[in-house]
Structure formats: C-alpha cells, structure tokens
C-alpha cells in the first residue's frame, strides 16, 4: 500500500532556487526509507513537504491518496512524527513536557500524558528522573533520544527524521541506530530518514533514495544499492 506519493513535484524557493525538480517517489506503508544526497540537494525540502511545512510549487503530493492541499494540515501534522535536523527541543519545558507536547495540544489529559512519557522514556533506556530535567541538562546523545521519542508520542503512523543522529559521536550514533532498528521491528511505522552517511542509509533503510540537485537519481533496496555502489566504485 502506498502511504506517501510525490507526483512530478517541483519546488522553487523565492530567488528562483530550484530545490526539487520533477520528483516522483512512492513511499510504502511500513517501510523504512532512507534518503541520502549531498548538502543542499533538497533532502530537507522533500521531508518538510510531507508535513506541509513546505508546499510544492508544481505537482501533487498525495498522502493516503489524498492531495495534501485538501487535507487539514494541523490534523495531519499531529499524525506525523517529526524529528528536525537541529533536534529542536523546547528549552523552557522539562523532558516530560517536551515528550508529551503533541499530546497536550491535542487535549490529552495530564495523567495519560505522564504515563506515555514514562513509557517512551523506558523505550530508549533513560531513567525516570530524566522527565524532570531540562534539555540543557542532557548530553547530546540523550537529547537526540528525546527528539526521537517525542516524535513517537502520539503513536503516529508516519515518522520523518532529518539527520537525527547528525551531531553525535560514532559510538552513541551506532547505539542509537541499533535502538531505532529495534524500535521499528516492533512499531512498523512508515519512516522517512534523511542522512548524509551512506553506511547509515544502508544499515537502516529497507530502501534508499539517492537525491542529487533536486532530482531522484536512484531508488533501490539496500541490497541493490550495495551492488550499484560496487559497480560505481
């Protein structure tokens, strides 16, 4: 089943900057798609189109077969988990409130939010005391973990991750990748995961999309991509 589909998508930013150029891409339900490509090739633009932070200049973006322009964007966003490139935790809210923010704006009661936050925290092996701490009091790796579970809070079917493990050391990064794979085995979400790192893309993705200069250059399963790279290198 197709969950998200890009049909001849073009995005031109003010100043005539073409970020996406006639892009066609179908993302299946429950698949882990990694998107890779050089800096500035349009990865973040592609991702933000799925939750309506960026609108296409041309073409159609369908979610569950429905044009995004006809969807209630606020309701849609609440069903899409979003881990932004810069983590973006709310510095004035403690970890519990950060994790349960989306539940709060949806009007979920306080004790249910608390329970959910505890549940999610244990998912990534952090102590319960962490709930009372503030983002600034956590290490980079811990912040990344919170960023990830915050996106899971409302149990959304789709999760967008923009280089979530970008700015952390190699070892923590490997651990977080393994954690994410284990999570996905259980949760079976549709994940779109952006990265710079080909190894990360191959390790995590069921399929890998290679973007270059706003165009979809290749899309292949990890195995196929491995062969393609062998041929190229």
């Amino acid at each position: 089943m197709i969950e998200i589909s890009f049909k001849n998508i073009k995005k031109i930013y003010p100043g005539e900057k073409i970020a996406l150029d006639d892009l066609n891409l179908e993302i299946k339900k429950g698949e882990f798609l990694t998107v890779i490509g050089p800096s500035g090739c349009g990865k973040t633009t592609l991702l933000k189109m799925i939750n309506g932070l960026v609108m296409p200049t041309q073409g159609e973006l369908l979610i569950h077969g429905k044009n995004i322009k006809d969807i209630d964007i606020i309701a849609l966003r609440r069903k899409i988990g979003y881990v932004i490139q810069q983590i973006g935790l709310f510095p004035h809210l403690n970890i519990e409130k950060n994790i349960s923010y989306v539940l709060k704006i949806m009007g979920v009661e306080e004790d249910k939010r608390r329970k959910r936050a505890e549940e999610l925290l244990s998912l990534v092996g952090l102590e319960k005391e962490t709930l009372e701490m503030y983002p600034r009091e956590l290490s980079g790796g811990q912040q990344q973990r919170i960023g990830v579970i915050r996106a899971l809070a409302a149990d959304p079917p789709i999760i967008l991750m923009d280089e979530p493990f970008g700015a952390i050391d190699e070892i923590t990064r490997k651990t977080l990748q393994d954690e994410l794979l284990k999570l996905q085995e259980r949760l079976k979400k549709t994940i779109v995961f952006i990265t710079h790192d080909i190894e990360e893309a191959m390790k995590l993705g069921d399929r890998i999309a290679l973007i270059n200069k706003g165009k979809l250059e290749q899309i292949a399963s990890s195995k196929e991509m491995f062969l393609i790279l062998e041929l190229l290198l």
Partner: protein
Amino acid sequence: MNLLREVIDQYINRSGFFLEAFIEHIELSAMAIILVTLIGVPIGIIMSRYPKIAPPILSFVNFLWTIPVIAFFGIMISVLGLSTLNALFALLIYGLLPIVRNTYVGIMEVDKSIIEAGKGMGSTKWQLLFQIELPLALPVIIAGFRNMAVMTISFAAIASFIGVGGLGKAIWRGISLNNLSMTIAGSILIAALAIAVDLSLGYIEKRVLLRVQGRTKGGIVNE
C-alpha cells in the same frame, strides 16, 4: 550637611503631604504602566505576525519617543488642558517604544528550529504563540517592561505639572516657593522608587531567563 537636615525635616514636618504625593505618584505610574503594557504587547505581537508592517510601526513609536518631553507636555497643556487622562496619554506615548520593540524583537529572535518543531508537531497558531513563542520571548519582554516602568516613574514627575499630583508636585512647589530642600526631597523619593522597581524587575528578569533556558538548578547565565 545643612541641606540634608533640611530635607529630613521636610519629610518629618510634611509627612502627610509627601505620603499623599508618593501614593499619587505610584497610582499614576501604575495606571500608565498597565495601559502601556496592555496596548504595547499586543502591538508587538501583531507586528511579529506581519513582519512587513513592523518597520513603519517601529519608526513611528521611535519618533514618538524622540519628541522632547518638555515640548510635548507644553503642547499637551495648551491643546488638551489639564487632566489625568492627558497625563496618562503623555506617558503612554513615551512608554510604547521599549515595550513594543522588545515584544516584537523577543518573539522574532526565538530560535527558528524550535518554532519549526512546534509547527511541525501540529500546533495551531495560537498554541504556537502561547506555548512556545511568548514564553521564550518573555525575558526580552520583561527587559522592555523594566525599561518602560523606570522611565514612566521618572516621567510621571513631569506629568504632575499637568496637574495630576504625584511627587512632581513637591518638585514643582519647591521651585515656585524657592524651597530647594522640598524639591530635593521630592526628587529623592522618585529616584528611590525608580531604583527599587528597577532592582526588583531586574531580579525577576534573571529568574525568568533561567527558567526559560531550562536552568532551574541555578546555573550561570552567560550574556
């Protein structure tokens, strides 16, 4: 030394007069401060929603702020006459700049990535404003409020020339009666009031900044 004793005598002999003027001064300042806040904060918020209209509004409140105080009060008296309302209006004109500017700048300076996270998670415009933007802009808004409050307290002395009481009365009467110690006694009270307000708001500002940055356990703030 003589002058100091005379000033103290003023407070002792005219305690009733000074107390009344002091209370009037606080009342007038408080009314003006509330009015400026109620008008200035929404203007700043609206500007942040429509950044295109921000520069002309900022230039306008900035222009108001640069009108010489004495000239302005002179015009007020001759055109509008003497009344509390006019004094409030005058204080409003001067108080707007810091509060409007800081509300606007405070909101605009909130980290874009944090706004994007809030938006991307499905906040409505109002939720974004009240849960994310305003709380994070609060330290800057309080700094503007503090600036405005101190300014209003000192300008309220001039406002008493438009016949609405307050500690300016003591300065005014001291000048016309050629009674220096009375003028000084009034001025000291105004300065004391302004300093007290400045220090307490400065304290609050720091606490709020720590809160907003998530340093409840009392870390050091680097500014």
